């Protein structure tokens, strides 16, 4: 039991820091660059993404194990996973609007952006590829989400300062953000090999 728990913890750390989605797997870059201009939005996005990722991981694991594998439909995994994610996001959007308008007002904007995001569809795909069990899938989804939130917060805090800096003309806007990310990614390279799964 304890060994199992340690394995899950290792998976969580590996997904959130060592194989950080943004800095070593390069997923979700569109959102990462688009929404990391302000701290508040970055945190909102991080929370929304983490919760959607965990639930999407759970739903797609159930679907994969109990429907797709028995009926030999694994070749349709791209179609089915994107369907699950899109349907779930749509449902969450509707439910949130009815049940908690305050929360919807804060996070609803991000929900709309989620269904066409590579990071959300990547979690079920990697889970299926690596044959994780249910708890491992959850740990992986949670770790990836938190890793994404961490990277968004780091980037937002740097970019808020960057607004005041005197950047050379051609580098203004996106290019300097990319180069900043390069330096953060270089720092994250230091985590490589911390845990070998």
């Amino acid at each position, binding site marked *: 039991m304890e060994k199992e728990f340690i394995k899950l913890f290792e998976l969580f750390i590996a997904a959130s820091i060592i194989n950080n989605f943004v800095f070593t797997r390069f997923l979700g870059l569109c959102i990462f660059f688009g929404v990391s201009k302000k701290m508040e939005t970055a945190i909102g996005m991080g929370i929304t993404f983490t919760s959607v990722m965990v639930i999407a991981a759970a739903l797609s694991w159930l679907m994969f194990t109990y429907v797709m594998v028995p009926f030999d439909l694994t070749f349709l995994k*791209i179609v089915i996973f994107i369907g699950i994610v899109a349907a779930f996001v749509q449902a969450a959007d509707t439910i949130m609007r009815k049940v908690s308008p305050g929360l919807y007002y804060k996070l609803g904007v991000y929900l709309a952006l989620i269904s066409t995001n590579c990071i959300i569809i990547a979690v079920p795909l990697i889970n299926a590829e690596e044959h994780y069990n249910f708890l491992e899938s959850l740990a992986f989804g949670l770790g990836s989400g938190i890793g994404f939130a961490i990277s968004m917060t780091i980037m937002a805090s740097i970019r808020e300062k960057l607004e005041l800096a005197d950047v050379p003309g051609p580098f203004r*806007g996106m290019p300097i953000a990319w180069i900043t990310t*390069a330096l953060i990614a270089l720092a994250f390279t230091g985590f490589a090999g911390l845990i070998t799964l």
Partner: protein
Amino acid sequence: MSNEDRISNWQLIKNGIFKENTIFRLVISLCPSIAVTNSVKNGFLLGVAVLFVQTMVNTTVAIFRKFIHPKIRIPIFMLIISGWVTVVDMVMAAYARAAYKEIGLYIQIIVAFASILARAEMFASKNRVCNAFFDGLGSGLGFLLALVLISFFRELLGRGSLWGFHIVQAKPMLIFILPAGGFLAVGLLMAFFNWIDMRFYGGKGAGGASGH
């Protein structure tokens, strides 16, 4: 087809390659621009996959545009995209096994590319099949060229080779193969294009400044 049509098709292609280049001007669908560009071969293969998917999706959407109800168009576009991505995924898995091991995940991720959905939504659902085909071709080619350009610099500087052939004897700069080097290379190239825009065309160098 009249002469006028042909000119506009050519313009559609050029527009996709230069003015609305997915990576350098619109700054969307960035994930693969770093993930697969550590060698020219991988960059090229993913570029071809995107080119194929973009063209076929645009054509399919344009063919069925009169039958797709506007209220449920997004889910239908997603279905069409994921169908074509599955085709590419299976072909690559069968014929390019070695490369597929490295870039397989990113080929499956094409399904979530904002650029493909955006093209289907903004152009293909409103235009004739022929125009939609060329628009997809142009936008896909722009993507392919951007990937090849980035991977050209990264492989040359980071490994001293091109398409796997060793050509530079000096010690390579390892950082360009590392993840960090990818961000650095794209940032520098983007700044370079902004500089050209500002210096020679009098633009504001806004490439990517407004993008997301």
